[in-house]
């Protein structure tokens, strides 16, 4: 069975169908469709401004589409408020991180694990896991988020989303502005999350990282899906890559 078809168990985890979104008069999303299966890592590539972030925001309920549908495990979730979606299992790590600057690292994490069903044991387990992946956060746990470096904030943003125990994490350009050494760390985190069974929809401009981490790739241009294939079918030097991502 081709990698491209939906997984054999039926419904995909996230299905986006024919989204049309406008910012004022600008037709930002022009019929965008994609799907992510349970536990799958899917990459979304494209130049700046083609609508990748808007797609993620629409899935997360932060932007309302004029037309189209987003479903989570078969149930339609378009129009639901974001806080419900977070509780249903969608984690969101935005561009420029957006951690709570005046809350400590611990308080930032707390916004994720302070919910019904999280016992004290579960909480320590979650914290232990996150601190083992990001020891620097453990060190800085009582420091205000705003005092962390860019890379540390990125880690906090991901760790915070992990506190929700999400089924899928929407990662928007995690390596942007990071030092090369940190890029490797992001790559490892994605792998760890994948091994944990968390699906990831990865929006990136870093092509090698995306191709290596993802199972399937979508490429967007000007608000439309232009290409969809297995990551293994693509290579950094491919013409397709040059066409849609080259300068």
């Amino acid at each position: 069975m081709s990698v491209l078809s939906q997984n054999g168990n039926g419904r995909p985890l996230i299905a986006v169908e024919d989204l049309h979104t406008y910012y004022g008069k600008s037709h930002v999303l022009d019929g965008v469709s994609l799907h992510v299966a349970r536990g799958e890592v899917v990459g979304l590539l494209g130049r700046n401004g083609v609508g990748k972030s808007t797609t993620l925001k629409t899935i997360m309920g932060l932007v309302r589409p004029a037309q189209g549908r987003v479903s989570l495990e078969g149930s339609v979730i378009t129009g639901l408020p974001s806080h419900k979606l977070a509780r249903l299992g969608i984690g969101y790590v935005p561009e420029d991180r957006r951690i709570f600057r005046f809350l400590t690292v611990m308080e930032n994490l707390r916004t994720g694990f302070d919910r019904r069903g999280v016992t004290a044991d579960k909480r320590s387990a979650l914290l232990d896991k996150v601190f083992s992946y990001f020891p620097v956060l453990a060190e800085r746990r009582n420091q205000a988020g705003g005092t962390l470096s860019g890379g540390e904030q990125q880690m906090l943003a991901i760790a915070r989303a992990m506190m929700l125990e999400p089924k899928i994490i929407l990662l928007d350009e995690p390596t942007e502005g990071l030092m090369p050494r940190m890029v490797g760390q992001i790559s490892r985190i994605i792998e760890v999350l994948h091994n944990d069974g968390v699906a990831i929809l990865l929006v990136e401009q870093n092509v090698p990282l995306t191709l290596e981490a993802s199972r399937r790739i979508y490429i967007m241009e000007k608000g439309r899906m232009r290409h969809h294939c297995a990551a293994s079918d693509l290579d950094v030097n491919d013409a397709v890559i040059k066409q849609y991502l080259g300068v």
Partner: protein
Amino acid sequence: MHTIAQFLQAIPFDVVIIQTVNGVITGLILALVASGLTLILGILDVVNFAHGELLMLGAYVGVVVIAATGSFWLGLLASAIVVAIFGAVLQIVTLRPLIGRDPLNTILVTFGVSLILQNYALWQFGPIERKIPEPINAHFEMFYLQYPWYRIMIAALSAAIIGGFWLYLKHGKFGIWIRATSQDRVMAQAMGIPVPWVYTGVFAIGSAMAAASGVLFGPLGGVSHTMGLDWVLRAFIVVVVGGMGNLAGSIAAAIFISLLEAYASIWVDPSQAVIVSFVVLILTLLFRPTGLFASAPR
């Protein structure tokens, strides 16, 4: 030298000390009122013109409950709970529909609510002042006065409520939700925080604080349908002088202004002493519009 000695002799030190105590007491109550107002202003971006009437409502609930049960504590508790619920309902019915609209609208709506509440109170309770009886009857000697203990108790309670709320804001779950929401509403939602309910909760808490102030002030002054305006006016002055949305600043400003008014009352009639707060406001606006006590953000 001689004139300084003369001047010092003319200051009635015992009166000054008494007024200091009085000033701090009303200052703490004012701080409680202003905290609720600042909270609502800072988190919901709403200028709550009805805040004084919520205080008044709380005072009247206190009057009714205390008359029925004889217990000051029950009155305080009942007042906070009833007005908190009322505040929550108010926010849901009148303020939620206005989210995203011009802030002009919330000013007008809260103003309308204040009118309705004032007239309702007048209609139900009449124009004559009511009294909340003193919770404790003991007095202690302060200079030439028998100073009542209940006033100290009221000051302590105000401080306790403010302090308790402060702690809750820092450590409690809802407190963290409030802080996260006020810093980044969108990401707070993305983290599963039900922001619309945070707004309702904050309004309820602010209302409860106003109600508690009303009951606490009850034994000090009377309870009437017009008491709201005096308090809200002073509270707004405190908010401006303390720095908008700045909780610590509001508390400092409240005590500062109340002390000045208390001292002024030594020499002028109390109804004119309020001019002192006006002067402080004018000076603040002239020289430090961001607030006399403006400091680092929460």
